């Protein structure tokens, strides 16, 4: 049985603190025995003492504090308890950490990692359930990394810590409790799975061994299970074979794996948990049509949360957030897909 994602992340933090003296962990309630609101930092303060700092509730400042540490030679990892509260830190993000290296003409680097639990499905309501990573996509010089449950979480977190630029590391809250399903013998379950190279790889999934398909479903993070479920259902119910691409690098946007897959499938559906407007799907759609208009047989379709608040009540929340059925429907609604043109 694969370990749970929360445990994989926790182990990775233990290893990072053990292997590098310059790594510090900061955040609200990160100390033992509490070990963080989602327990990702469990055991760290007992083991590494002074390098694990409990902070006041000062999100607006903490990203700046971490930047000060980073500029002066350390590699801080800051946890923002709920990613929703990254809004408080936007001045430091936009006018500070993303600019220091370039505006100081390369005289400094800002190697800091901000870990942010995002996403809904737990009934936490409008201000504790959002997926706000899209707000960071418009900030040049940041890196936004969003692992899925099939990624090597330890490798990704290690790459983020080793990165000389600020990395926002998006952890989906529902993902924490799920098994970290790494590909085995090139497969995850029944689906063939390939991993691209580099520190922030994408995962490509196919039910037909990448010989082609009806559509590419591009997603990331906590939406991967919905995309895989939809792809499997489409095979079983409709005999439609889709490829799924799970990106881990949202900024810079890792376009190549999506283009590679679209070249085989001729259509694209994007899937994200955040709200629709100005989202990652919009950016992907723009870039794919720019680079591969001739490959597309149908307009790109975006699956995302409704533009509104995420209600607390379970039924209301489910109605707003995208799920497997929304993904499958979007694929079926693509022009030419049912006709089996591919």
């Amino acid at each position, binding site marked *: 049985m694969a370990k749970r994602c929360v445990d994989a992340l926790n182990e990775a933090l233990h290893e990072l603190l053990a292997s590098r003296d310059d790594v510090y962990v900061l955040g609200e309630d990160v100390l033992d025995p509490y070990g963080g609101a989602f327990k990702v930092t469990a055991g760290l303060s007992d083991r590494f003492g002074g390098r694990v700092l409990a902070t006041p509730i000062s999100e607006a400042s903490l990203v700046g504090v971490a930047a*000060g540490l980073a500029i002066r030679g350390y590699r801080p990892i800051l946890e923002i308890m709920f990613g929703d509260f990254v809004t408080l830190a936007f001045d430091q993000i936009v006018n*500070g950490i993303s600019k220091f290296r*370039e505006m*100081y003409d390369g005289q400094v680097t800002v190697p800091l990692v901000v870990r942010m639990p995002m996403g809904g499905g737990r009934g936490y309501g409008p201000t504790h359930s959002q997926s706000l990573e899209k707000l960071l996509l418009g900030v040049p010089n940041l890196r936004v990394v969003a692992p899925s449950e099939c990624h090597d979480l330890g490798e990704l977190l290690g790459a983020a810590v080793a990165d000389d630029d600020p990395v926002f590391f998006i952890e989906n809250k529902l993902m924490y409790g799920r098994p970290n399903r790494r590909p085995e013998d090139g497969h995850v379950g029944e689906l063939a799975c390939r991993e691209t190279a580099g520190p922030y790889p994408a995962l490509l999934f196919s039910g037909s061994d990448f010989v082609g398909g009806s559509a590419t479903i591009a997603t990331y993070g906590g939406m991967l299970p919905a995309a895989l479920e939809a792809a499997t259902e489409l095979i079983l119910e409709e005999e439609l074979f889709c490829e799924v691409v799970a990106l881990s690098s949202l900024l810079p946007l890792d376009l190549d794996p999506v283009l590679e897959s679209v070249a085989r499938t001729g259509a694209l559906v994007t899937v994200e948990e955040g709200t629709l407007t100005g989202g990652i799907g919009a950016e992907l759609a723009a870039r794919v049509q720019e680079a591969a208009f001739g490959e597309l047989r149908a307009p790109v379709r975006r699956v995302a949360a409704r533009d509104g608040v995420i209600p607390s009540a379970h039924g209301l929340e489910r109605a707003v957030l995208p799920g497997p059925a929304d993904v499958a429907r979007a694929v079926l609604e693509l022009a030419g897909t049912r006709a089996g043109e591919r």
Partner: protein
Amino acid sequence: MELARLYGQMYRIRRFEETLLELFSAGKLVGTTHTCIGQEADAAGVIACLDPERDIVFSNHRCHGHYLAFTGDLEGLLAEVMGKATGTCGGKGGSQHLCRGSFYSNGVLGSIAPVATGMALAERERGSGAVTTVFLGDGALGQGVVYESLNLAALWRLPLLAVVENNFYAQSTPSRLQLAGGIPDRARAFGIETEQLDSTDVLEIREAAARAVARVRGSGEPFFLVIDTYRFSPHSKGDDHRDPAEIEARRLRDPLTVAAVGLGGEQRAAIERACEEELAAALAAARAAPDAG
């Protein structure tokens, strides 16, 4: 002699800032600038107490005096403001986004306090004995992150010296319209030691700063130094609606005049001459340098 050195420092800053304003008036500079004419004793007095090899300075939008006092790099700053490739930040930062060695500045008010706090934490962890000095204006005291930073600095016992240059204005807005309560009280609420002085006497400021720096270095804890001062120049280039009589009255306490009293006429003339020569050479070098980009 110390006074002569400090006078030279202040004169150099004054003439640098005047030169910028002249260049702007002549249409030779674009963008914006905030000069510290009238406040030179703060930069000279405080920074005289710092160790340029070890300490850190984080400054704000009105940063030229701090930069010159800490780094000495007049030519790089001039070139930076003039948009030259040879500028401190290759022309990317301009007047208020400077970096050289352990000097940093950023033009977003208050925003520098958390970063300076993090730097103080880094130096504490490294055990370097460095003091991190952050310069704030009275207007920046309206920003919440300043108080978050003071809380953190006190809580974590960080070697941070916060210097408030209280010139009684934030851009066009006088203190009475933007500041409630006392300034040192703000830091005292966090248990931070404070001192306030109303002075343009560079020796007096240097003495107060020496006490503050010694406290921070000795105890490893933060200190909050408030210097009441006054800016003669406009907020940036020509935007001034203050009562001219108020400015004139404050000119009687011009830090250069105050310091000059302790110097001989010939000594002063020699300092000023050397400075004019340096400035002329820097201006010629910057003019000759290639434009950035």
